[in-house]
């Protein structure tokens, strides 16, 4: 099945998200779609999967024009999408999620789960998508949840699969497995549209690459002939500098001292097991580790959002183990939450409101009991400009920003104020190469001003790029420490330790 987008334009009010886009998707091929944050990739794919009506332009399937009235039409025509943010019911089983909306039913409208389960098993068999059909979604790692999303689309017999930033939340091993799946799908004649910000991934897996900038396709190419710098330049329109400038390592006194910390998960299992670490002013400590080894609990405990079962957290000589998030905030501790959608932003609030979500209560934004909105709007506009948060105005709803721009909004909010310590979870998730370099430079600037920083990231490359010291976390403990100023880093070795080799 050959899909052609002809002259697609999509407007949201005054914003032009896509402008005269022409794109062809051939069966059995992986089309890589690359572009800056807010370039219009998700919007274009939402048009293709029937979620948005194009303002102008047409879609052709095998040279016949089609019009989709909703995603149901698109999936019946064989086009299915796995969205940037998953859409599974957490308390349902895999099989239940897969059949949701197209349930096979027996007599008297009885839900025929046996057939559903068999179908899920057949699909996982055919394409190498190992999942247990009876597992409950919320108990599964993200990588597996993603397979469920893919099975869901295959179950509806899609021939074209759109995958919007599928690898953003995957561990390196999961990415390898994911690529295997993509290859087997292609062999079966499916067409894949693959969106990512990771240039090495797109070079590895795509058969063809199209680059989109400010809503328009600005170039296409063969991954065998393109290099990372060339791609990056095509994306942003000028050469990109990947290296972060780094002042010499000059740590000062210990600012955060975590001693014998034990933290439990919601249901009582141990998340952090008697962990100790120190962060000094003027240094960046990176926490490396495979997701699910207690990193989230560590961040939440340090931000005051999760109760500490035992142990002590001292900040600048003061015991802060049990003080409120607001009190920590007042002390100059900033926190970039891992999950921007759920915890970092309020989608229906404006960009400006989100920009002051945790600073609205004090000067300069509050005047007595009221908020000085004039001041808020002016400041938000300045910070958005400085951090290149692409939004039509500070009055736009945050939910209407592109995924990467939502992330930039959260990071901008936390880094733009006066801080002494920064806790950041996945600070550059979903950002394009230029934005990553910019955020890394901001983190570095905070360090050079004397802040302590604790960065958690599942991207080992990111941790290695910014950290002065690297701590590897495994099963709730720190199992190894590396310092590039002492010995050069060995990525392979760190990877092994992350997988549990030192434990």
């Amino acid at each position, binding site marked *: 099945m050959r899909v052609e987008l002809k002259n697609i334009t999509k407007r949201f*009010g005054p914003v032009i998200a896509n402008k005269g886009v022409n794109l062809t998707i051939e069966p059995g091929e992986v089309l890589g779609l690359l572009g800056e944050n807010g370039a219009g990739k998700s919007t274009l794919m939402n048009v293709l999967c029937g979620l948005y009506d194009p303002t102008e332009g047409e879609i052709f399937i095998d040279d016949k024009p089609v019009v989709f009235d909703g995603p149901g039409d698109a999936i019946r025509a064989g086009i299915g999408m796995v969205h940037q943010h998953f859409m599974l019911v957490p308390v349902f089983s895999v099989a239940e999620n897969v059949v949701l909306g197209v349930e096979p039913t027996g007599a008297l409208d009885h839900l025929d789960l046996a057939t559903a389960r068999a179908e899920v098993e057949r699909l996982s068999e055919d394409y190498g998508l190992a999942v247990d059909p009876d597992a409950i979604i919320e108990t599964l790692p993200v990588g597996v949840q993603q397979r469920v999303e893919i099975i869901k689309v295959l179950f509806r017999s899609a021939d074209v699969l759109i995958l919007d930033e599928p690898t953003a939340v995957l561990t390196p091993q999961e990415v390898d497995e994911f690529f295997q799946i993509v290859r087997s799908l292609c062999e079966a004649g499916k067409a894949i549209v693959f969106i990512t910000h990771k240039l090495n991934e797109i070079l590895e897996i795509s058969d063809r690459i199209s680059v989109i900038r400010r809503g328009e396709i600005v170039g296409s190419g063969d991954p065998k002939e393109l290099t990372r710098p060339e791609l990056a330049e095509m994306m942003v329109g000028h050469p990109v500098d990947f290296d972060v400038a780094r002042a010499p390592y000059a740590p000062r006194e210990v600012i955060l001292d975590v001693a014998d910390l034990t933290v439990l998960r919601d249901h009582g299992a141990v998340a952090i097991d008697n962990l100790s670490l120190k962060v000094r002013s003027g240094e960046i400590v990176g926490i490396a580790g495979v997701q699910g080894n207690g990193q989230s609990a560590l961040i939440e405990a340090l931000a005051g959002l999760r109760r500490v079962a035992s142990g002590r957290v001292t900040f600048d000589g003061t015991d802060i183990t049990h003080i409120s998030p*607001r009190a920590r905030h007042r002390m100059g501790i900033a926190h970039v939450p891992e999950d921007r959608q*759920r915890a970092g932003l309020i989608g229906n609030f404006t960009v400006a409101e989100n920009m002051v979500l945790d600073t609205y209560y004090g000067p300069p934004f509050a005047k007595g009991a009221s908020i000085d909105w004039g001041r808020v709007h002016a400041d938000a506009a300045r910070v958005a400009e400085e951090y290149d948060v692409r939004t039509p105005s500070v009055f736009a709803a945050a939910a209407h920003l592109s995924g990467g721009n939502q992330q930039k909004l959260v990071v901008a909010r936390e880094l733009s104020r006066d801080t002494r310590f920064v806790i950041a979870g996945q600070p550059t998730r979903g950002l394009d190469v230029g934005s990553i370099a910019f955020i890394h430079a901001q983190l570095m600037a905070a360090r050079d001003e004397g802040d302590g920083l604790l960065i958690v990231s599942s991207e080992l490359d990111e941790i290695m790029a910014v950290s002065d010291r690297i701590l590897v976390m495994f099963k709730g403990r720190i199992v190894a420490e590396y310092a590039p100023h002492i010995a050069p880093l060995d990525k392979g070795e760190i990877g092994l330790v992350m997988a549990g080799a030192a434990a």
Partner: protein
Amino acid sequence: MNAMDKATQWRLLGRTQVEDLVIVPLFAFVAALFLGALVMAATGVDLAVIGQSYVALVKGSVGSLNAVSETLTAAAPLVLAGLGLALGFRAGLFNIGAEGQVVMGGLAAVVAGVALGDFPAIVALPGALLAGALTGAFYAGIAGWLRAVTGAHEVISTIMLNLISYRLLDYLLRTPLIQKEGRADPISKSVPDAAELPRLLTFIDANLRVHAGIFLTLAMVAVAYWLLFRSKLGFEFRAAGENAVAARFAGMNASLTIILAMAIAGALAGLAGANQTLGVLDRATPGFSAGIGFDAIAVALMGRSHPVGVLLAGLLFGALEAGGRQMQVDAGVSIDLIAIIQSLIIVFIAAPLLVKALFPWGFRREGSG
């Protein structure tokens, strides 16, 4: 999906708000009147009478000075209680308890008014109003506290508190401190003149009931607007209602927000009760709340939990109530029909997609922005 997407698409121009606050309710109203006519026709009312009754509806709500006075009188408590509910909804609290808060606030205002009867009006009236507001706040605060501390859902607890308030009213009305001297039935002492909300237009006609409560109501619309959209507290309410997790991550105190939102909602409902006892009824009797707290839920929903919307919705409901009485007098249509029309309006408003499907030309087309 497309329609939902449309609703959240673009806020910058405020077009969505206009649709929500004005166009949807307007069409809902028209559709409800039409269905109301069908219901009348189905019950054997002939066409002339149906026409006559709608004329009466207009006449009785805005057709004369007295009609306007009645509309405003009926609207004031609905707006006051509706504002409180709207604040709660914004904070993510589904408070069903305005009725009980109206009862407790209204009764407290009478008690305080009687106690302050010898003071000049400048002390007695504010004192009585304040007593109503504080009692409402306290009564709603119980539900807020239960929710914040024990997790008891406010829908259940406020329904129970409503039931308790009815019985408590009956009981208290028979206690010597409150019961009117020389009466055996449950009825309170009369509110002394100093604590009454003065009638405004008696110099034109002694029967015009509109009273100073409408100024209180307008002031509260402004206060609620300020609170919701200009104050720190309102920012916290809205954040908690939109995304409680993000609010917590931003360092807002969820328990405090819940308790304060409930208490302020209760204060406004208490004022609605005080408005009735001090401005209209002159005393408290069993059932004096007359379902205001329940109608106010509809007013808050119809007003889209926006103070200005609540004001408009309250005026509409007030007009329906005043006009309904006239319908009954002029055309002999049952007052129940008014209840049916009110209910139909609520159904239509609760289903904006239905309204948009019925009147597609009234709304923006998908994609054109």
